[in-house]
C-alpha cells in the first residue's frame, strides 16, 4: 500500500465558528492505481486531497505513506516529501508566470534533484509542447497550460499524482483530451493517481471511485 489514510478528520475556523470538513475518512491507494474522488461542492474532497498531498495537516488520524505517517513530519520534511514524492495538478494550472514553459516543466523535477533530460524530452513530445517551450504561461491557452502542468507534475517521476478538478477550467473536448493524455502517461511512470472531480463521466474513466458526502465517505 502506497498511501493509507486512516480516520482523518479536519476542521477549519470560519467567521461563524468551526467548520468540520472531514469526519473520520479512510482510504488507501496502491502504486499504479487511479482513484476518483467525487462529491458535491463543500463535501471536503479538495481538503482530503490537500491532506493527502502533504499540503496541510489533519486534526486527527494518520496519513501513511509507505508506512510512515506524514502528519507527524515538520515543515522541512513535508516540503521534501512534496518535492520528491508528489506531483500536483490544479484546476487553475498554477504555473509559475515568470518562467517560460521549459523552465516550468523542469521546475519541480530540478527542485527535487530528479531531472532527467531524456524523460523530459519524451514528456514534452508526448504532450505536444515542443513548439511552446520558450513561451510564457500567459501566452498559452487553458488546455496548453494544463498540459504544461501535467508535464511539470510528471517530470520528476513522483510516486503520487494528485489532481484537483484538472479539467474544471477547460471545455469538454479539451478536458477529455487532457485527461486522456494524463491517463496514458501514468503507466510509464508507475505513479498512483488520486483525482478529485464532480463529473461522474470523468470519474468513470479511472480505476476506482469513492464518493464523499458531508465529510464522510459513502
Amino acid at each position: 500500500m502506497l498511501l493509507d489514510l486512516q480516520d482523518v478528520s479536519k476542521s477549519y475556523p470560519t467567521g461563524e465558528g468551526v467548520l468540520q470538513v472531514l469526519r473520520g475518512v479512510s482510504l488507501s491507494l496502491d502504486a499504479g492505481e487511479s482513484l476518483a474522488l467525487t462529491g458535491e461542492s463543500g463535501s471536503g474532497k479538495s481538503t482530503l486531497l490537500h491532506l493527502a498531498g502533504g499540503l496541510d495537516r489533519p486534526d486527527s488520524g494518520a496519513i501513511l505513506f509507505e508506512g510512515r505517517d506524514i502528519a507527524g513530519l515538520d515543515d522541512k520534511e513535508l516540503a521534501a516529501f512534496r518535492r520528491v514524492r508528489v506531483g500536483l495538478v490544479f484546476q487553475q494550472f498554477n504555473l509559475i508566470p515568470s518562467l517560460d514553459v521549459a523552465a516550468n516543466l523542469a521546475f519541480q523535477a530540478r527542485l527535487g534533484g530528479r531531472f532527467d533530460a531524456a524523460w523530459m524530452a519524451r514528456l514534452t513530445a508526448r504532450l505536444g509542447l515542443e513548439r511552446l517551450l520558450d513561451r510564457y504561461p500567459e501566452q498559452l491557452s487553458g488546455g496548453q497550460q494544463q498540459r504544461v502542468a501535467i508535464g511539470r507534475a510528471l517530470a520528476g517521476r513522483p510516486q503520487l499524482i494528485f489532481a484537483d478538478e484538472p479539467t474544471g477550467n477547460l471545455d469538454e473536448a479539451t478536458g477529455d483530451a487532457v485527461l486522456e493524455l494524463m491517463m496514458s502517461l501514468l503507466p510509464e511512470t508507475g505513479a498512483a493517481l488520486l483525482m478529485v472531480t464532480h463529473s461522474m463521466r470523468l470519474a468513470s474513466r479511472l480505476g476506482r471511485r469513492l464518493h464523499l458526502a458531508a465529510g464522510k465517505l459513502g
Partner: protein
Amino acid sequence: MLGQGFAVLLSHWRRHKLQFAMLVLGLALATALWSAVQAINGEARASYARAAAVVGQDRLEQLATPDGARLPQSTYIALRTAGWLVSPVLEGEKRFGGERLRILGVDPVTLPADAAQVNVGAADIGLQRFITPPGVFIMSRETAERLKGIDTPPIRISDALPPGTVLTDIGIAQQVLDAPGQLSRLLLAPKQPAEVRPLAQVAPGLVRRAPAVESDLSRLTDSFHLNLTAFGFLAFAVGLFIVHSAIGLAFEQRRPVIRTLRAVGMPLRALILLMIVELLVLSTVAGLIGVALGYGVASLLLPDVAASLRGLYGAEVPGTLSIRPSVWGLGLAIAVTGTLVSAAARLWRIASMPLLAPARPRAWSLASERALRLQAVGGFVLLVAAWLIAQFGAGLVAGFAALGAMLLGAALILPLALSLLLKLGERLSQGVIAQWFWADTRQQLPGLSLALMALLLALAANAGVGTMVQSFRLTFVGWLDQRLPSELYVTTRSNDESQKVHDWLASRSDAVLPIWNTEVRMFGQPVQVYGIADHATYRQHWPMLEAAPDAWDSIASGQGVLANEQLARRQKLTLGDMIPLDGGHSLPLVGIFSDYGNPKGQVIVGVGLLVKLYPDASRLRYAVRIAHDKAPKLAEDLRGTFGLPDENVVNQATIKAFSLKIFERTFAVTAALNVLTLGVAAIAIFASLLTLSGMRLSQLAPAWAMGLTLKRLAWLEILRSVALASFTMLAAVPVGLGLAWMLLAVINVEAFGWRLPMHVFPMDWLRLFLLAVASAILAALLPALWLARRAPADLVKVFANER
C-alpha cells in the same frame, strides 16, 4: 444608501490597518518636509522684505555719494533751502554689550509717508522723548530679547523692523555712532516741486539712485533658498510615490467590493463620489498631520539656517518661526491635490470598468516589457536634454533644470536597467531556485519600480551631495590655511586707537599687516575693496587662480588690481581688463584669487591706493605675524594694554574654527534633509513590499506546493529586497557622481560664483551602500516574517476552486 456605501468603503481600512498607516504616514511625511522647507524659506523672505522696506528703500529714490561714503549735514540743508524735499538718514553699526546692532537714524518730521514704518507720535513714544537724549530705540521683539540686561537707551517694540535693526532719531544716531553732522544718505519724497535748482548745482557730489526693488540680500540668498526648495520638492515627490502605491493597492483589493456594491444597485457616480470624498478626508487628515510635523521640523532647522545666513550673508533672519497660515494652507492644499492626482488614473479606470469585471491584482503588477522600454526611452531623452541644458544654458534656473532632468531621466531608466540586470542574473544562474529567484524578481519589478526609483533618487542625492560637501571641506580647509596665514587678527575701535595699536605692535611682532577695506558699488553690485600691504605673506600664501607674472609688484606700486573668482565670473573678467575704481581711476586686473564662501565680489589694491581713493575706508583691522608660540602672550599683552575685548584680538585657529563652523552649519541643514529623504524612500520600499505582500501569496503558493519551505521563501524575499537595493545603489553611484559634478561645476558656480575641484570618496559610498542594504533588509523583514508564519490553510486557499 450613501452612508452605507461609505461605511463599506471605509471598512477596507479597518481590515488593512497597516496599509492605511502607510498611506497616511507617507503623505504626512512628504507634506511635512515640503512644508518645513517652505516655512523656512517664507520666514527668511519675510525678513528680507522687512529689511528691504526699512526706510522705504524699496520704494523711494535716494541721494547718496557714489562710493557710499557719508555726506555732511550741510548738504541736506543746502538741498532743503533750494526747495528739494529730502529727508536725512544715518546708518551704522554699533556693538552694545557684545551684540551687534544696525542703527538707523531718521527724522520723523520730514520722513516721507512711504518710509514711515513706525508711528513715532504714538502714545508710548512721543516725539519729545524720541528726539531728546537719551532718545528711544525702536526694535523688534527678538532684538530686544537679545539686549536683555544690556545698557541701552529706552527700548520700544515694533515688529515692522527686521531683526538686529534699531530705529532712532537722527540726532541720537549721530551721537551713538560718533558721527556728528554726518548723514549716510537722503530719501527723496516721491513728488518733488516742479521748479527746483538742479541737483548738480546744489549738491554736485551726490548721485540719484533708484529704489532697490529687489534687495541685495534677497538676490544673494536666492541660491540658498533655491537649494532648500529643490530638496522640498524631492521629498514631496518621493512621498507621492508612496501614496501612489498605497492607493493603487487599495483600489485593486477593493474591486470585488466595488463590483458587489454596483451589482446591488449603487450608482457608479455615487460610488466615485464616495471614493473621492474618502480620499479627501484621508488626505486632509494626513496633510494636517504633515503640516504640524513640518512646523516641528522647521522650528528645529531654523536656528541652523538663520546662523548660516547670518554667517554667510550677514542676513538677519529670526531664529523662531512665526505661524504663517499661507504656508501651512499651501502645504495642506498640495497634500490633497497630490493625492487626488495620484488617484485620478485609478478612479478613471474604475469609472470605465464593466460591472462584473473580475478582480485581477496580478495584472496590476505585471507590466509589459514594452512599457518599461518606452519609459527608458523617455529617460534617455531627458538625459540628453540635461546635457544640452548644461552645455548651453546659463543661470541658476537652467542649472537646476538640467539637474532635475538628469535625475528624472536616470530614475526612468532604472527599471529597464534593473530588468536587464535581472535577466542577466537569470541567464547566468545554474540552480533552479536561483533561476526562479531572478525570474520572479523581474516579475516583481513593476510593483516595486516606483519605490526603487525613489530609492535611487535618495541614494544619488545622498552620494552626490555628500561628495560635494566633502570636496568642499577638503578644499576649504586648505584654502583657509592660505587665506588666514597670520597668527593674530586685531580689530581696533577707532581710527585713533588703530594708529596707536599699530605703532605698539610694530616693534613687538614680525609684521603688522593692515586689513583695511570699504564697500562700494561696482558693476551695479556691492563689491568689497581691500587694501593690503606688500609683504611676503601674501606673495607666498595667497590662493591665486590666475596671475600676471608681476602681479604682486603691480599691486604694491598701486598700478594693478586683484579680483576674486566670484566677481571675475560674474563680469566675465580676464587678466588685463580695466577695473573702475573711485574718482575716475581705472586699473588693470592682474590676478584672480579664489574666495570661497563670500557672496560678494571683492577687489584688492595696494593699501596706499586704498587710503588715497577711499579715505573713509575702515582702518580698524590688522593681521599680525609673529612666531606661533609667542602669539598668545602678545595677544594677552595687547588686550591688557589697550583694554581690547577678547573678540577683538583673535588668533588664527579661532577664526579658522569659526569659518569651518559656519560651513558645517550650512551643510548640516542639507545633511538633515538628505537623511530625511532617505528615510522617506525606505518607507516607500516598505510600503510597496507591503502592497505586494498580499499578492505574493498567490504567486508563491505554487512554489510552496512543489516543495519549498515557507522559511526558505521568506529568506528569498529578504534576499530579493537586498539584491534590488544593491543594484539600485550600483546605479546610484554614477548618478550621484553626475549630480556632484553638476552641483560643483554648474550650480555652485552659478549660485556662488566659485568652483571647487571634485574629489571622490569611495568610503562614503561603501557606507551608503551598507545603509541602503540595511534599509532594504528592514523594509523586507516584516513582510518576510509574516510570510514565514503563514498557516498552510492560507496558502491552500489559493488553490481553492472558487476565487
